[in-house]
């Protein structure tokens, strides 16, 4: 794979993991730290090969604990910084993520997730949904979580992750899995178009010509920690209000709506096409942001269709958020596999059942 060209849009055939690197580099990320774990090793390997020539730094740290804290230092310096890992490594990063959220530091964390808990297996899975969207670390914070379902999105959502993370001064996560990470397909590498170019006046660069500054998460005096927590809460509410993203797929006149993200959504698209050919009015709402969750869209959709079929590569995690968004719980069905991709045939079969037909 070639390094990044700054020429206008070009078509590139590459792996999802490498598209993340291309997106990061295009978005100005010059600092990557990480620790090897399957199935995301293409990312550190790409960064090790390309960042030095771009004047950046690659560092293989001694652990994920160190990785996230090295990131904390680079983020505090006002630079764009990224890491990538998979479930067990992301667990080790939770301490640092909580500190970064508390200290309001932006960074991009990629989770090319595998199946757990524990060492689990290296099969693709969406079992890290709760960890990603409900916190993971201590103290009650949110990550912005983006879920690409194609190589194109691996590229584009990485750029978006940097922008959103900077805009809200909070860590953002790309939640992928072994399939979107390893699959190869062509994508359009359009040039980076920054959403905002506000500087980082909070960065620590030495106090030349100004008062000293601190970046910290410890708030002992009076009720400073309460004030701080309300401030963070208000920020997460703004993110909720302004940043939810979802794709509507063949929802015109749909009576059965799949709700799925990432690889599960990708496979569902095939099943939905087949179902439509059979005359079943199926469609899909695909959350692109998992936090913020597309709450309004799910609420409206539940009223418009007969069934919401939630499909996940786990035993049921996002389905809890779908239930949270609508009182119409009897319209919600679930199909899950903890350690594998559901096949289009399996999904079609379930759609047929729900449509009252036999296969």
């Amino acid at each position, binding site marked *: 794979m070639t390094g990044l060209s700054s020429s206008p849009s070009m078509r590139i055939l590459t792996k999802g993991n490498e598209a993340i690197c291309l997106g990061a580099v295009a978005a100005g990320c010059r600092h990557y730290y990480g620790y090897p774990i399957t199935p995301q090793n293409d990312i550190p390997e790409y960064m090790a090969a390309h960042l030095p020539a771009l004047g950046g730094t690659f560092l293989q740290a001694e652990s994920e604990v160190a990785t996230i804290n090295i990131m904390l230092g680079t983020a505090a310096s006002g630079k764009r910084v990224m890491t990538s890992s998979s479930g067990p490594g992301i667990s080790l990063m939770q301490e640092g993520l909580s500190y970064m959220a508390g200290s309001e530091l932006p960074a991009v964390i990629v989770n090319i997730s595998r199946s757990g808990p524990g060492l689990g297996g290296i099969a693709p899975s969406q079992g890290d949904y709760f960890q990603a969207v409900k916190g993971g670390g201590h103290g009650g914070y949110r990550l912005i979580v983006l879920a690409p379902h194609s190589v194109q999105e691996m590229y584009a959502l990485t750029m978006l992750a940097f922008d959103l993370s900077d805009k809200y001064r909070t860590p953002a996560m790309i939640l992928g899995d072994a399939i979107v990470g390893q699959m190869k397909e062509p994508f359009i590498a359009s040039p980076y178009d920054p959403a905002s170019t506000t500087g980082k006046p909070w960065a620590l660069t*030495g106090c030349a010509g100004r008062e000293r500054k601190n970046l910290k998460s410890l708030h002992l005096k009076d009720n400073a920690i309460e004030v701080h927590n309300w401030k963070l809460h208000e920020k997460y509410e703004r993110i909720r209000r302004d940043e939810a993203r979802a794709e509507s797929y063949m929802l015109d006149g749909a009576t059965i709506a799949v709700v799925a993200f990432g690889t599960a959504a990708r496979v569902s698209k095939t099943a939905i096409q087949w179902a439509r050919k059979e005359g079943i009015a199926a469609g899909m709402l695909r959350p692109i942001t998992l936090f913020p969750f597309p709450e309004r869209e799910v609420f409206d959709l539940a009223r418009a269709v007969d069934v919401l079929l939630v499909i996940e590569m786990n035993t049921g995690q996002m389905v809890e958020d779908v239930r949270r968004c609508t009182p119409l719980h009897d319209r919600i069905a679930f199909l899950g596999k903890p350690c594998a991709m559901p096949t289009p045939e399996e999904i079609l079969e379930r759609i047929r059942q729900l449509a009252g037909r036999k296969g």
Partner: protein
Amino acid sequence: MRPPAKAGFSKAVYTRPRSLVDVRSHFCPGCHHGTIHKIVAECIDRYGLREKTIGVACVGCSVFLYDYIDVDVVESPHGRAPAVATGVKRAQPDKFVFTYQGDGDLAAIGTSEIIHAANRGENLSVIFVNNTTYGMTGGQMAPTTMLGQKTSTTPYGRDFRGDGYPIRMAELLAGLEGTAYSARVAVSTPAQIRKAKESVRKAFEMQIGGMGLSIVEFLSTCPTNWGMKPLDAQKRVLGEMSEYFPLGVFKERQQADFA
């Protein structure tokens, strides 16, 4: 307010370093953190580093570094200061970066981070405050707690059979290729304070010269958790503590290359 200098006594022999914030100390009576802060501030001033310094605060009584040293400071999770400092230095190699860590922080939860930062030869300076206990959490056993020393979690005294031996970090880190400078100092007498300052200067010079990681271990007091009067705490440092933790320079790189 200090009284105005009397005629004939106008030569200042003792002034507040520019990089030390003029606030009242919150540390316990007889605690050495204040003296160590002053030495660090003086050395920052000496090399004109104040405006290009980023300090990294740790967890423990040392975390309040940012209330006392007049430079940019980022706070790190418990033990991770060398990793955070690595991230700052990699992003801003032209800046002066130091960590300020207690013994629980550096020698227990953060052993991995300090060893690997040192082993990579990160161009950082580490101020390491060894008071043989966890001060902030109320005097529990630290990796540096002396054999026989009673702490709230070694109520019968530290026993090597179950609790292990006190770790000599300055010596341990001196054994790593990437360490440029490693020394142990104390601040219990004026002579020791002068020597300590020399060591911190040397450590800072190592970073300025791009030599690798430099660390100065301070033998320090925690009268509150030791259950001692400040003067007895000084005596403990001068006696028992410096016997097991000898003062001195354990490594001093002469040239920048690692050959």
